[in-house]
């Protein structure tokens, strides 16, 4: 049991964290609802005019669609590759395990600008720049460690006897994988898949390097816009982004349950 003063301290910290973390979101949300022509908080009057404007803006719509395509390609590539790699790394003794583990740390050690320029050179050499799929591939390559981690953490919890039990029940290798292994690591696959989608959706730096004026993605378009003038429509776009992220978390909770992230070990 906590004493009264402990309760006060804990709850103050909790509310302080909640407010600091959500303040930027609330400001953006407020700014997007302004009736005026400037980004301002508190908003000058309430209106949905900026949402109407972005809903009608063709360049925004197309950039949004391109971002969805990039995120979709990234997810489609990363889910099978990441799932198999994650399983292999956690279930089998492999040669070069150390080397692979070092590779998995790369996203934290190599700045994105470095990997982005590398990919730009490679794709430029192949003459494929200017289409969307290299951007999706690039996002998959750069963010792959995240889904591998996510799948591995599910896989290490998997009792190896489950697969032997499946064999004992008469299941061959493929059937064992489909009926037992895959369902067991599904929480990791779903989490990793959503993560890959959101990361690719939001990816800015690599998109900036790999896109040109004809195929800008949404984050790049927003960047281009704020270099000239910051108008409330950008706040509205940001709110749409936040809504997508919230939808992803809601979906994750429905499919996997958030408690696996909240569990303290």
């Amino acid at each position, binding site marked *: 049991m906590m004493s009264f003063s402990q309760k006060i301290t804990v709850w103050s910290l909790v509310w302080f964290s909640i407010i600091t973390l959500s303040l930027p979101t609330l400001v953006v949300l407020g700014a997007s609802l302004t009736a005026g022509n400037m980004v301002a908080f508190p908003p000058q009057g309430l209106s949905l005019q900026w949402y109407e404007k972005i809903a009608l803006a063709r360049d925004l719509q197309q950039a949004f669609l391109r971002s969805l395509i990039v995120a979709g390609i990234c997810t489609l590539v990363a889910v099978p590759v990441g799932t198999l790699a994650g399983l292999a790394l956690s279930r089998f003794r492999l040669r070069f395990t150390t080397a692979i583990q070092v590779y998995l740390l790369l996203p934290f050690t190599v700045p994105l600008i470095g990997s982005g320029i590398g990919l730009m050179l490679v794709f430029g050499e192949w003459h494929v720049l200017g289409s969307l799929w290299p951007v999706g591939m690039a996002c998959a390559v750069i963010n792959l460690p995240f889904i591998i981690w996510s799948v591995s953490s599910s896989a290490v919890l998997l*009792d190896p*006897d*489950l697969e*032997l*039990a*499946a*064999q*004992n*029940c*008469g*299941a*061959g290798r493929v*059937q*064992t994988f489909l*009926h*037992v292994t895959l*369902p*067991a690591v*599904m929480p990791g696959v779903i989490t990793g898949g959503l993560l890959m989608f959101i990361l690719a959706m939001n990816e800015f730096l690599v998109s900036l390097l790999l896109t040109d004026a004809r195929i800008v993605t949404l984050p790049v378009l927003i960047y281009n816009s704020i270099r000239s003038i910051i108008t409330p429509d950008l706040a509205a776009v940001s709110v749409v982004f936040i809504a997508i992220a919230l939808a992803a978390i809601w979906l994750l909770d429905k499919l996997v349950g958030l408690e696996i992230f909240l569990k303290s070990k």
Partner: protein
Amino acid sequence: MSGTGSSDAVVARNVDMDFGTGAMAVKQAGFSLARGRFLTILGPSGSGKTTLLRMIAGFQTPTRGEILIGGKPADAVAPHRRSVGMVFQKLALFPHMSVEENVAFPLKMRRFNPREIPGRVAQYLDLVRLGGFAKRRINELSGGQQQRVAIARALVFEPELLLLDEPLAALDRKLREEMQLEFRRIQKELGVTTINVTHDQREALVVSDEIIVMDQGEIQQHASPVEMYRRPANPFVAHFIGVSSFLAGRRTETGLTVNGSDCAGQAVADIAPGAEARGAIRAEQVRIAAPGDALSGCDTVLEGQVSDTIFEGERLLYFVTLPALATTIQVFHHDPAEHAPYARGATVSVGWTARDLLIFPAKDR
């Protein structure tokens, strides 16, 4: 128990398992098991018993030697094509499937007629007394109920052989004893050949038709429970099953001389007189009485002091120090209500008949 007949469900011949980590996990294991029998492989942890079971299931391939299942060499048969059902130590039920889906899984994988599956699942759930639990999730069941699902899943496709890999080890004592009798009932009802692995000597005695005792990868003895208990092949078996005291000495005409005192006993093998030997005597075969009591019928009677007494409910366990032998032996005293228990430090007489002190060659472990 040796000799290979056509009715043998399982035969192992000179089976070695070498993981390349020093000592071999299984050395020269050989046994045969007739159809419909219940065999328990008993041994301490690290004795190789689970490795032997996993080779029979097909999860590991013997380094040398061969295993026959139903008269056919098993090496060439992949684990999922063997007619072997297994209950795993941690059960390994599929957590994302219901009770009924778990039990139906082997039938689906083994391509049973889909119209036959629901009836068969219901039949086996009834057999393990889980009718009415078909739709439950695995994590909604108690430990004992999960055991029953695992048994049903292992038996539903009517395998030639049932393997039990210490599935009862994690249960509390009451439930474990209940499940031991349950295994025995189901095994007798279906007549399925069964190999059980355990380190629990009581379980081995209760459930089995035959017992194999293993230690350090080697089979020490293969016998019926009664024979195993009454005529252990070596001191290790005598030590592992039941409570025995050991006396180190030299062989004499009538038994063993320990620290210069004669002890009546009988040798289990030819031992030259004067050679080093070890005697073993069960705690329940030693009689205890007040000092000076002649203990009629005993061939050896010695005086000693009680160094400790332990109340075990249905019996008392005395540790009695015998100055003549310079050792301490364990003595069971049943129905202690009849006598005032001998206090610590009290002088007592202990005795045994020659038949009950078994004498082994000293080189035996």
